[in-house]
């Protein structure tokens, strides 16, 4: 009767079974870092080993400050490149590929049944492939680089079941914002979330990634979508590595369950300054905006750009609004260009930035002044996150952001 989390941890710990709340040592399959590899490198050097445990299991991807916004970041990039060469790190994606969570998926690094740790909180994204994927800090990653192992407390699991068809313009983002609003920002603290139900099985891989990605914002340690044919064929097209998909037992025990009816869902929005401050878009419609942002590891994928382009086509972005478009990866950028979405968005007045994290975390590109308001498809609206602490960030779906960008105010799609 184990859950997915229990099955994967048992296998990674070379045990028949594990018990909730016990501490286990797990073997790591993939260890990902971005620019904070610099923090990892320093701690790794302090631990004092000469060589990393396995240069073929470490993945480094630049995405947070690309191209370098300062001399300091340029020096960080340089130090990491040198380390990559010295240690023969096999999978290094310099700034040309895009956001780490998208790049990991596109290059076949997320495989069902495996353990993936990343020095980024949104590493939960890869639960969308049935991977036990959790965020960790830099020093802990240095421990993984040294030993290939990490301790985990076997988490309790939460089962979220979703049935029904979305109304027009309602998407995975509205669903997960709704769930976070219900459960609160610590509603899934330390837990493994499993998404079940017909709505989830019908979802695209891209939409499933939105659910796993944002589950972090309710505290989840990992957030699984049950791997199915769609998952297997997506992964097989991208890697030759063998993997074994894991499903929960039918009578698996869950500490908590939640059922959601997708059909009755309206557009949702997370209001300042917390991701669980969720309202229906119509409750805050009419608020003027200065910036609209479509991108990030949450919603910068092809289907997001497609819906935005279909809404904006033939119209103009409101003159008082800066619409920033950030494709999540080079692949997506190319596909969106080929499909004409980029042309549509640029014609309407959108600014297309290079694939990367952009202003989501407030490092560069499109920060906000005091008193400004931004509606974004990103994942956090904490006070001061995207520039001034007197600015406001609202989080919504690509459709809501697109409609709002045209009207110049927060607008419910219809």
């Amino acid at each position, binding site marked *: 009767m184990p859950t997915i989390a229990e099955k994967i941890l048992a296998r990674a710990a070379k045990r028949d079974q594990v018990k909730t709340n016990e501490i286990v040592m797990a073997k790591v399959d993939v260890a990902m870092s971005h620019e904070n590899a610099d923090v990892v490198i320093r701690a790794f050097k*302090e631990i004092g080993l000469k060589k990393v445990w396995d240069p073929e299991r470490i993945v480094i991807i630049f995405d947070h400050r690309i191209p370098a916004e300062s001399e300091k970041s340029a020096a960080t990039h340089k130090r990491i490149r040198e380390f990559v060469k010295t240690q023969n790190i096999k999978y290094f994606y310099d700034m040309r590929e895009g956001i780490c969570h998208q790049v990991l998926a596109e290059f076949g690094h997320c495989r069902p049944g495996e353990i993936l740790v990343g020095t980024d909180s949104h590493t939960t994204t890869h639960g969308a492939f049935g991977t036990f994927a959790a965020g960790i800090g830099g020093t802990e990653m240095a421990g993984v680089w040294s030993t290939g192992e990490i301790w985990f407390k076997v988490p309790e699991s939460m089962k979220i079941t979703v049935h029904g068809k979305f109304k027009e313009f309602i998407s995975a983002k509205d669903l997960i914002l709704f769930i976070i609003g219900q459960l609160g920002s610590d509603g899934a603290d*330390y837990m493994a979330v499993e998404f079940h139900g017909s709505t989830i099985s019908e979802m695209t891989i891209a939409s499933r990634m939105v659910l796993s990605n944002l589950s972090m914002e309710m505290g989840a340690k990992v957030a699984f979508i049950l791997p199915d044919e769609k998952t297997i064929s997506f992964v097989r097209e991208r890697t030759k590595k063998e993997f074994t998909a894991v499903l929960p037992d039918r009578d698996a025990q869950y500490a908590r369950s939640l059922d959601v009816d997708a059909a009755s869902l309206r557009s949702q929005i997370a209001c300042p300054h917390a991701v669980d401050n969720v309202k229906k878009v119509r409750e805050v419609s009419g608020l003027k905006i200065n910036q609209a942002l479509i991108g990030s590891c949450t919603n910068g994928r092809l289907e997001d750009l497609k819906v935005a382009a279909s809404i904006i086509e033939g119209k103009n972005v409101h003159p008082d609004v800066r619409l920033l478009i950030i494709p999540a990866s080079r692949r997506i950028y190319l596909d969106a260009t080929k499909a004409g979405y980029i042309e549509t968005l640029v014609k309407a007045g959108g600014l297309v930035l290079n694939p990367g994290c952009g202003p989501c975390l*407030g490092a560069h590109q499109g920060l906000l002044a005091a008193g400004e308001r931004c509606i974004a498809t990103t994942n956090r609206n904490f006070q001061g996150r995207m520039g001034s602490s007197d600015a406001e960030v609202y989080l919504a779906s690509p459709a809501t952001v697109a409609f709002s960008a045209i009207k110049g105010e927060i607008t419910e799609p219809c």
Partner: protein
Amino acid sequence: MKEMFYNRPKPLHIKGRVYKFGDNINTDIIYPGKYLSITTEREEMARHCFETVYPEFLKIAEPGDIIVAGRNFGCGSSREQAATCLKYFGISAVVAESFARIFYRNAINLGLTVVIAPGISKKLEHNDIIEVDLKMGIIISKKNREELKTIRLPSSVLEILSAGGLVPYLRKKLGVEQ
């Protein structure tokens, strides 16, 4: 090694003055994103604790203070700087009703004492003097001698913390200690 950040084992008994925060203090608040390009200069990180949203912290707080907070302390980003800046500022412990998991692990790995104590934030005020006893799993408020229970760390995890963090712990375990 030139600068040994992870230098000594952690004391299991800590005494200090309370600096109080509320619920859901996220890592963007603790360590603003605009300073994430500071990756290795730990003293510099300490100069930016809470700078954007609670700038008074840098003026009022003192090394040795114990942060007492409500639920979900350290939620949000995995940035280790959030734990490093507090440690390097000299915060001797963070006691909260609950922690977000990545911050919690980061703190332990850096040798910054973190203690889960349900109900703590209602019982303590700014400037109270408290004693944290990790071994006994209790907090004693000097004001009224009240004893508050904490949730004890699993012994394997306490071992990492009491070694002074993951680096000294692994150096010993892997036999690279000089």
